[in-house]
């Protein structure tokens, strides 16, 4: 841990402000609490909201995992993990099961979360109605009146034009039967994991200065219609490395001739399966025994 920084980087007054916002967010599930977002030593869009929420929640005994689109080894995840190792001195891990706080950009880990974990989402646009109604005064009133007709019209128009709801990520959800919430740009494949999760889920939007939350065991319903029920979707293939058929897949272009393969987006899940001996069609023999991802 570096000298010269307060524990977890933020000053105590800022942490108190964020902590008060977090408690109100938990008390009003799905409602976006305004907070006084700080400038962080990374640009907006790199997870400044999530970083501020994580900083306000961290204790010295926490074990932190950070993922970016499911991967532990991408630039964003590596730099946020090393940021907190440096300014808070906390232990870090790539293993979902070992983490007490998981900060995520756009994925929910495949391995089911537990009551002892907090999932912190990085959120770019917290307002699910923003692209339908640009005025904050109006969207705020719509939430106040629980007036979500516009969102249903938007989903209906998808069905009218395409025969199905085409929204593939940031698929809107109803939290505890009251507030419509943007679950951040997670693939809709992950939406069912939001519902009645044993873990506490916190959402931080730095640029937009909003914090919201889903308490454990809370009902989170993806918006749909009786005759067009919500469907979690993914690429129709097994993972080429570990053979998993139940995980969300990234499409990887492998040559200039249109060749492609599908691999788990959750690197820890994929590595864990390979360590356990599972292998997919494109896994070279040496991958089987590698355990942790390279």
């Amino acid at each position: 841990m570096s000298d010269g920084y307060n524990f977890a980087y933020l000053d105590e007054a800022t942490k108190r402000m964020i902590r008060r916002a977090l408690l109100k967010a938990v008390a009003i599930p799905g409602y976006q609490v305004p907070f006084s977002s700080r400038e962080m030593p990374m640009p907006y869009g790199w997870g400044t909201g999530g970083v501020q929420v994580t900083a306000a929640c961290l204790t010295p005994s926490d074990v932190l995992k950070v993922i970016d689109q499911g991967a532990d080894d991408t630039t964003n995840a590596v730099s946020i993990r090393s940021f907190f190792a440096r300014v808070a001195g906390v232990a870090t891990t790539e293993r979902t099961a070992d983490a007490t706080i998981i900060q995520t950009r756009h994925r929910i880990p495949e391995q089911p979360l537990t009551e002892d974990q907090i999932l912190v989402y990085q959120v770019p646009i917290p307002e699910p109605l923003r692209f339908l109604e640009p005025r904050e005064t109006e969207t705020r009133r719509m939430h106040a009146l629980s007036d979500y007709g516009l969102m249903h019209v938007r989903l209906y128009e998808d069905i009218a034009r395409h025969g199905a709801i085409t929204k593939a990520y940031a698929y809107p959800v109803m939290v505890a039967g009251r507030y419509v919430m943007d679950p951040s740009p997670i693939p809709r494949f992950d939406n069912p994991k939001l519902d009645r999760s044993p873990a506490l889920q916190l959402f931080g939007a730095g640029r937009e200065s909003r914090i919201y939350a889903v308490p454990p065991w809370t009902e989170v319903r993806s918006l749909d219609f009786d005759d067009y029920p919500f469907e979690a979707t993914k690429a129709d293939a097994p993972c080429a490395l570990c053979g998993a058929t139940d995980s969300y897949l990234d499409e990887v272009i492998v040559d200039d001739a249109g060749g492609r393969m599908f691999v788990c987006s959750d690197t820890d899940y994929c590595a864990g399966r390979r360590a356990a001996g599972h292998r997919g069609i494109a896994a070279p023999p040496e991958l089987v025994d590698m355990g942790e991802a390279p």
Partner: protein
Amino acid sequence: MGAMMDGLHLAGGFADPATDAATAFRAVLQAMARPGQIESVRGAAPPAPCSHAAGAALLTLVDSTTPLYLAGAHDCDTLRDWVRFHTGAPLVGRSEAAFALGTWDALVPLTGYPVGTPEYPDRSATLIVDLPALSGTGARLTGPGIRDAAALSLPDPAAFAANAARFPLGLDFILCAGDRLAALPRTIRVEVA
């Protein structure tokens, strides 16, 4: 003035403010996210009649930007000086309070506190209630944060049920006894067991 002179108010803060507040906050966050769950908090030693748990909650959440209402016996010289020295919170009446601290009898009736507005339900008071005891028995709790049902010794279940009926407006509660605390957000349905 007596308290100021004897310096009692100077003691009893967090020994290591950053990590003590972080640990205390996690306890409060867990309690608020899992109503009925009782957490232990340490590190604060406020003067009587404030419990150690309530003191830790104050040091973790309250500062010069959050008006505080001290109710009843908690509105004494010693505690006022301690709060001023350690948090800098402006001491106000209940209608302006972001936080309120007192025994249940001193804080009721639950009228006159800010409960938020339909556009900003978060602009509502958090009541820190010092209770003689806290146990996982009594009123039946259901709602967000609770898997099936939980139980908590509440002083007046009907008052909490009336508060929940106002959702999304309403008050949130941190219930303290000694060094233990639980929380009750406005979302929770409260029934007499």
